[in-house]
């Protein structure tokens, strides 16, 4: 057991919250809520320190900025029968998301202080949730990924369903069933891919690179039957350089079906119109810290899945269906913005703004503009990086917005926008922070929201001009709903709602949650390379690998020929280019 080893370090990072949860469940005294909260906060802080520890860490676990490939890749046998491994690793795509997760969870725990119902259970579930979230971002075995995905689902269900508002049960069930529906589709896709995959064409070197143990490599290469795999990295390579997923089923290739199923599963999480209606309900009913985590981290899993799984494993389908991805992104942006404009519930408004902002993510990931004649992938790289940046930026701004709404709700116990007003005069410091964070959501330059939106919108033109124009128009709507809200809630002289006497200035605890969010929003807005230096190489590598296939996809006129090729014995000799 040595912390230098990535296997130990990443496992510790992932399971520390779960272990702590078990410890709290078993040993913590039930009646000392304060102690349990403090212990939980300490665990989230340690987890956060562990996650950023990789940025500054000692040799062995240090994350090397500028390196595009997967780092700290390790593999341990888990269920050998199905060749399921405990396979984890981290790269520029997952690292910022992991850090975001631990950061938002830490702040979320800080925001959980007012919770006084079943504190022990709450803290246990929150920590389990954290393990699930970190695991999703680190797992590179499809089955492991799926397990973490489900692990995260249940605590969330209870956190909404028990600690939520008046309609919590409806909201929790809705959240649960929507996500479950998505994960069932995902499971079908996973199995499709698993059973049509075959590791043999990859060759010994590649398998060694993927951390397959030496004795098993021989076994795989000598086998007569197809050697299936759940290894996401292997599936990516198979998807990109072999014809294994091109078998046809009801007129579409497996690849396409898998892409579609996975994509639906992920956009439920994003969420994208028309599968978004669980989100406003879940947010409205969830307690403040859970809203922060839900918006700040859980939504990001959808985007993460699309860039890590959908596109790299099913590139041709991704190319063919890019129009669908982009259109859904733009529709979500417009739809979310309009719907936000109509809301009177402050939290529901922020929830719809999330729908709109996450639309940028889907759009940015989808703008596969590396098309004929130049096959220049630069604009797509920009879109993808913008989308990934937007995920982090939205994680910060939306968590902040939900927290800011929560601060008000805690004082006056209502969220009706038309019953606020004059908050600025009563809570000046709070209002200053809130305005800053809302402006980050508005996409004001100098704050984090701008960079992602700007990059995504700029990169869209190259893919499709009409979509770009519509996407650009959303800036007007965003400004409208955010400024109108700020006006009704913060400006003016008179507070129109009940409990006016409760509007006391912000407390230091709340300050310590809001101020770091605003500080990060400014830092990332002014110096986006603080994220991009870590993220960009990996994201760009993903785009480059896929874009290099575009000319093949364009040149392919007859799918039948492809299938014939896939079924022919040439599979074994398929040349795998050095990636």
């Amino acid at each position, binding site marked *: 057991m040595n912390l230098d080893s990535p296997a130990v370090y990443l496992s510790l990072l992932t399971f520390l919250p779960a272990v702590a949860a078990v410890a709290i469940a078993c040993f913590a005294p039930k009646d000392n809520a304060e102690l349990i909260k403090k212990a939980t906060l300490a665990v989230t802080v340690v987890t956060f320190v562990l996650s950023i520890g990789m940025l500054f860490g000692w040799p062995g676990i240090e994350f090397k900025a500028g390196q595009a490939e997967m780092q700290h890749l390790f593999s341990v046998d888990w269920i050998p029968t199905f060749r399921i491994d405990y396979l984890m690793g981290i790269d520029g795509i997952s690292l910022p998301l992991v850090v975001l997760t631990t950061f938002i969870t830490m702040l979320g725990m800080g925001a959980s202080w007012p919770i006084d119902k*079943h504190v022990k*259970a709450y803290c246990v579930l929150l920590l389990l949730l954290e393990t699930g979230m970190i695991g999703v971002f680190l797992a590179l075995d499809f089955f492991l990924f799926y397990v973490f995905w489900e692990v995260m689902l*249940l605590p969330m*269900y*209870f956190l909404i*369903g*028990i600690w939520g508002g008046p309609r919590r049960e409806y909201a929790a069930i*809705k959240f649960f069933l*929507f996500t479950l529906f998505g994960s*069932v589709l995902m499971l*079908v896709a996973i*199995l499709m891919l698993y*059973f049509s995959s075959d590791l043999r064409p990859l060759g010994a070197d590649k398998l060694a690179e993927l951390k397959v143990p030496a004795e098993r490599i021989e076994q795989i290469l000598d086998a007569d*039957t*197809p050697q299936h795999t759940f290894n996401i990295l292997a599936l990516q390579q198979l998807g990109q350089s072999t014809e294994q997923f091109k078998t046809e089923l009801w007129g579409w290739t497996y690849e396409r079906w898998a892409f579609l199923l996975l994509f639906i599963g992920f956009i439920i999480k994003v969420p994208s119109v028309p599968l*978004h*209606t669980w989100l*406003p309900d879940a947010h409205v009913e969830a307690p403040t810290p859970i809203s922060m985590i839900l918006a700040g981290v859980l939504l990001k899993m959808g985007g993460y899945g699309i860039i890590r799984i959908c596109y790299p494993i099913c590139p041709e389908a991704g190319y063919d269906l890019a129009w669908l991805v982009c259109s859904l992104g733009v529709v979500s942006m417009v*739809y979310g913005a*309009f*719907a*936000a*404009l*109509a809301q009177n519930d402050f939290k529901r408004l922020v929830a719809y703004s999330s729908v709109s902002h996450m639309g940028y993510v889907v759009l940015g990931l989808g703008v596969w503009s590396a098309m004929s004649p130049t096959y220049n992938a*630069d*604009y797509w*790289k920009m879109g993808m990086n913008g989308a990934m940046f937007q995920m982090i930026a939205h994680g910060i701004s939306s968590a902040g917005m939900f927290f800011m709404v929560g601060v008000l709700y805690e004082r006056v116990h209502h969220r009706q926008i038309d019953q606020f007003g*004059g908050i*600025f005069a009563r809570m000046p*410091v709070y209002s*200053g922070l809130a305005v800053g964070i809302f*402006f980050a959501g508005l996409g*004001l*330059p*100098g704050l984090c929201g701008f*960079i992602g939106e700007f*990059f995504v*919108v*700029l990169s869209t033109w190259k893919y499709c001009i009409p979509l*770009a124009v519509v996407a*650009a128009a959303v*800036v*007007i709507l965003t*400004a*409208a709903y955010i*400024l*109108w809200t700020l*006006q009704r809630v913060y*400006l*003016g*002289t008179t507070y129109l709602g009940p409990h006016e006497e409760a509007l006391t*200035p*912000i407390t*230091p605890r709340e300050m310590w949650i809001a101020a770091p969010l605003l500080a990060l929003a400014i830092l990332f807005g002014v*110096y*986006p*390379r603080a994220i*991009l230096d870590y993220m*960009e190489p990996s994201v*760009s590598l993903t785009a480059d690998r896929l874009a290099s296939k575009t000319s093949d996809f364009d040149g392919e006129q007859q799918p039948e020929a492809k299938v014939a090729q896939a079924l022919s014995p040439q599979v074994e000799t398929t040349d795998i280019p050095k990636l």
Partner: protein
Amino acid sequence: MQSARHSTPMNPATTLPTILAIAWLLPLAAFALVWVGYSLPQMAGGRASYGAQRTAGWLATGAIGTSCVLAIVALIIWLTQTAPHEVATVHETAAAHQAASEHMASPPTSYSGIYYTLAQFGKLRISIGYYIDALTIAMFALVTLISTCVHIYSMGYMHEELEDMVDREIATPDGNYYHRPGRYHRFYQYLSLFSFSMLGLLLAGNLAMVFMFWELVGICSYFLIGFYFERPSASYAANKAFIVNRVGDFGMLIGLMALWSCLGTLDFGDSNTPGMFSQLRSEAHQYELDAAAMGSESADTNYLLLFVAGVGLFCGCVGKSAQFPLHTWLPDAMEGPTPVSALVHSATMVAAGVYLVGRCYPIFVPEALLVIAIVGAITLTLAATIAITAYDIKRVLAYSTISQLGYMMLALGLGGWAAGLFHLITHAFFKSLLFLCSGSVIHAVHTNDMRQMGGLRHKMPWTAYTMLIGCLAIIGAGIPALGIGLSGYFSKDAIIEQAWSFARVNESSGYQLLMWLPLGGAFITACYMFRLWFMTFTGMPANTERYDHAHESPRSMVGVLVLLAVFAVGVGWHVPGSKLSVTSLLERARPAGTLETTTGTWLPNLTVPDEHLSHEPQIAIPAGWSAFAMAMGGLLLAAIIYVWRWLRAEEIQQSFSPIHRLFVNAWWFDQLYDWMFVRPALWKSKFFAGIDRYVIDPFVNLLARGTAFLARALDLVVDRKAVDGSINGLARLTWDFGNSLHRLQTGNLRQYVVFIVVGLLGLFAAVSLCWKYALAG
């Protein structure tokens, strides 16, 4: 990174970026200091004391004052260290002029480079950089100077904010006025942030950076308009300003996207890779516009893209510079404190649109220029007609600003690059002077309504006569025979000359209008400006109570007025004993290839004339005299109505009643937009929210109910008989877990959990078996 064309012992290529960067960042430092320094005591529940607030004012003023000094140092370095272009002077022979034009066909001296990179993707790079040419230097000096003036002026004007403030515009339910703590330091904080953003906009080395600071000045304007945010009118005006500006920015984004996607860069200058200007006007093409740089295969598409890019960029400028049809926000923006109106909403920020058109001039195809000219012409007339009927002194000035910005746009659109930017600079001085004078008046009489004023020149002579200078400057007063006049005389004449020159080469009657409208506008301008001056300062006091309380403003305010008056008089002049003037400085920045007479591609009979041709005597003399006559006519009319009272304003209003109502209601644009855009947007938002509530959700609920029904049915058949008997350990564990949680509160969860776990395992097993057999078979 720098591309210097001239190297000298003290290399401007390195000193200028440093000096200007310091000048740019100083106000930001002041902003940050005030923000942090004054938020901390507030968190502890305290509030900034009188002395602390004053310190904030001095801090901000000191910062912008230092910036101003640095900007002037930069100007001096520029003038001494860089070799001037040969500038074609006014009276040159055609031959010499031809030679000069050829010489001009080289890029102007400029320094461009990068402070730091925001992001790089392959060959695409977005950075924080600089592009420094004579225009940057001139604008830097202008903005820092006026900003410093406004900072100093505000020390007097905003002194009420130092103590607890009584807002007389807001009545509380108990019949008193609204009391609140003063916000003096906030005001300076916003001013500092604005100065920083505006300077960043000027220094920007690429359009992406321009866009960022474009939005930032927008948000500063939002804060400053909404400074009295307790007043509903102020918060509405602030929202309106920002949202209308965003409409323009939408167009600007389209322009940016087109350029970015076609050229692969948004840099103005060349740093390592060729920038936009050298791609679109390359040396190989003698700096003529080269649409092929847009990269698509057909020439028509290229031209269309370039047109779209130009018009898109111009949309942003329409929003920021309050041009028709997005002009409606600026009059409402007068809700902000008057120094803000002087700095942000007349002299600098709203002029940023004109600046940007000037900066991006090499991008515009002749057809796009025509669009600019038409919009400018419509704006200048429309705004002038509204100004003549307004009674709010600040609104008159606001409409006058819109109208003058229209002049600048018109000039740029007709090929008068130097004329438009020259007017931008002169206008900045006399309009900030006018606004600060009006602020001085408002400060004295506590009202904006000119009908409550009158005779004030006896009470506040300094204000009255400096404002008279401002009025004379804006109408372009001067003596054509001698060629002397106030600053506005030179710049407005240059615009009229260009319009005259344009009308001479373009025969069609539509184009003639582009000459007649500015001439008519000159008449109306003189009329409404002197209507304002006469109503305010001459005649009998309309409200004796207000008159008796009126007093001249403190020295900090009057001093600034005098300083600005000096500039309003002299900024158009040559430096005695040299050829140096604002115009000659601007000529040094003229973009390569934009001077030649060009003709449109889609509109072959559209000719944009060489600007230097407008200085030929056969154009300059008649144009100058017409402008003079128009201005004098307007002045006379105002005098007839408001001094000699030969005509009564009320009678004129009655006899032109429909037109008067049109003007008074600002052509009903606000109402029109409310019906055309605001309400439909709200309807649409209700519609979309309704889809969620009445279509998607019921559908989902229906599905859920159906599934639940099915589950109950299955429960009877399967669960009791099959599953219960063979449930495995994992499921039992989960069952217990669910059970234990169930005791906490929730409903019928365990059923779900069991179904999920069993269902998934079953699916997994079934599929894997099928596949095994399928593949084995």
